């Protein structure tokens, strides 16, 4: 009888442990996160006529909000665009964003992103260097590789706004695609 009781207690503990562990596992993604991405940066629309695709990369940090599916983020990246001629443009976008995690039970964590900020722009050989406002919309997917590591992808559209500058008739349209590696940090 003692043996049976012992088995029941062990099974209960194991089940409780598994249930507890499952709940905590779901929470890992809700921790603050820090990560990096790397991939092609592609000018699109009329920007594609003056700049060429290249590789870019950046860092990002995410923090929770009281509303669990929503996170706040800050992103910084370096993107260098050559052209068919001698012109080139180096961009350092820095922006804040809100990320909404799509509430679908799926192996992948899917997030929608919207943000705004500024981008430092340096055009050569003209030697023009300045900050410009920018806006972004994005989509991210990732799956956990353990408690800490997440591996995923991201697709961001960046619009560099120049409408406030006299004589401006265009803006910058960039699509960032990349693979991401980020870490759940802090929290319990």
């Amino acid at each position: 009888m003692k043996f049976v009781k012992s088995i029941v207690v062990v099974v209960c503990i194991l089940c409780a442990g598994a249930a507890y562990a499952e709940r905590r596992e779901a929470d890992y993604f809700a921790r603050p996160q820090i990560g990096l991405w790397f991939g092609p940066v592609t000018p699109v629309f009329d920007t594609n006529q003056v700049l060429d695709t290249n590789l870019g990369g950046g860092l990002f940090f995410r923090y929770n909000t009281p509303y669990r599916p929503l996170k706040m983020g800050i992103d910084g990246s370096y993107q260098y665009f050559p052209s068919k001629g001698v012109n080139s443009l180096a961009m350092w976008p820095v922006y804040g964003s809100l990320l909404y995690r799509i509430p679908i039970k799926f192996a992948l964590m899917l997030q929608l992103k919207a943000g705004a900020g500024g981008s430092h722009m340096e055009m050569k050989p003209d030697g023009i260097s300045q900050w410009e406002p920018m806006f972004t919309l994005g989509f991210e997917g990732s799956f956990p590789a353990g408690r800490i590591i997440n591996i995923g992808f991201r697709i961001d559209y960046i619009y560099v706004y120049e409408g406030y500058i006299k004589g401006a008739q265009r803006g910058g349209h960039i699509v960032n695609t990349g693979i991401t590696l980020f870490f759940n940090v802090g929290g319990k």
Partner: protein
Amino acid sequence: MIKRYKSWALLCIAAAVITGCGDKPLFDELATNRLKVVLKGTFESNGPRDWQAPLWTATDHGSLNDLTSAGETTAGKATAAPRKFMLDIAEMKLNGSPFANYRHTYNLDVTDTNPFFNGTGVEFDCDDPEPKHYSKLKVYLRKLIFNNGELYHLNPSGAWEHDGALKAIFKESTIDGFDFNQLLVNSYYDSLLEQDTHINRVFPFSIVIDDGGLDYSNKDEETVLEVRFVIKNFVKKYEYDSYNDDGYHQVGHYWAVSDWLREMKADEEPLGGNLLAVARAYVPGKVGSISGQNTTGVAGYAVAVPDPKTIADYFISSTAVPRPPCNDIACEDSPKTPYLPAGNSVESFLDYYLKYEQYKHRHNEFYNFVGTDSSNTDYEDAWNAYEDYVKDYRIPPLATYVPSGSNYSLENVPLGKTYNVYFIPASIFNNAELPHAGEAGQLGPLSVTVNGDESGRDF
């Protein structure tokens, strides 16, 4: 928790404040150009003289020694005047810095209305360079082609026969014409040097940006870099020699820029140093003009050079330093071997052997000049003196043609500068030639400071 969100909000606001700094529309700067490169095929900066028909016939000079222009018709077809000029430019650089790496080809009609020849110019795509001062433009010339080149060979009877049109490759297609750019790689002087294979005068072709160079600023709405190649009314017919597949002597008759500055003699090929060009820069809206009337009674050119320079700084002296000769008395130049006759007549072979004896005699003379003179005064110094003389020729930055009794106007002259203006009679330009300094009929200088449209500068 509230404090934490305040920090984020402050960060976002700070980012938004920082972003208000830019004042140049970068993507418009990338899509448009402030620098405009304009290519012209004229000696004149505006108002060029029409193509002069006699120039096409006044071309029987030293190069056409085997088959004359008259003989072409007998051979079956005359080499007609060119009707097309084809230009293939790989890229351009300013002081060695790339700014225009868009290859461009031009197929231009040899007419007075074509923009390349009417003073308007054709545009070459470029990007804006770094804002600074530039003094030299390097143009990477791939092809320079005139059409209407013809091939002839000497048949066994000793008569010339027409073989068809000369062929060249332009825009990756075979066309009728002759690419004389390949002959501009070396001048004849270069070909005498040990390092001749390391010299290339057209890839790149270096052009001085005259009249103060190019001071490029991206604060100006537009800056024009005008590049002029002297092509119009500066064309001659030449002959090259070779053997065809059957071993017969063949010649090609083709059109190319005049060898007025560095003469091409019979049985020679290098034509380098005869492509003359000048570049200048101006900012539209910051220019004036110099105008006046030609009362000299003859047609001519109004030419302006920036003060304190004078015309003598551009045109070489009419007291020529002659090209070292090669004749039966003094041969300071390597003699050319005669071509084997194709004919089966005894006379043609006797003629060949006679020429060969002459060649041997001249070669001995040449050896004496080169080999026995330890100080090289008869050969090296003579050729160096000749090159030093011809290499100083410059094309004036401003020039226009003016018929007798008409008004002239030099356009797009930068404001605030002083120019020395000269009149040069048009007759000096006949026979695909350019003027020397101090030749008869030249008038000037008139010193003109340009503060706007400067009129009444009559000759």
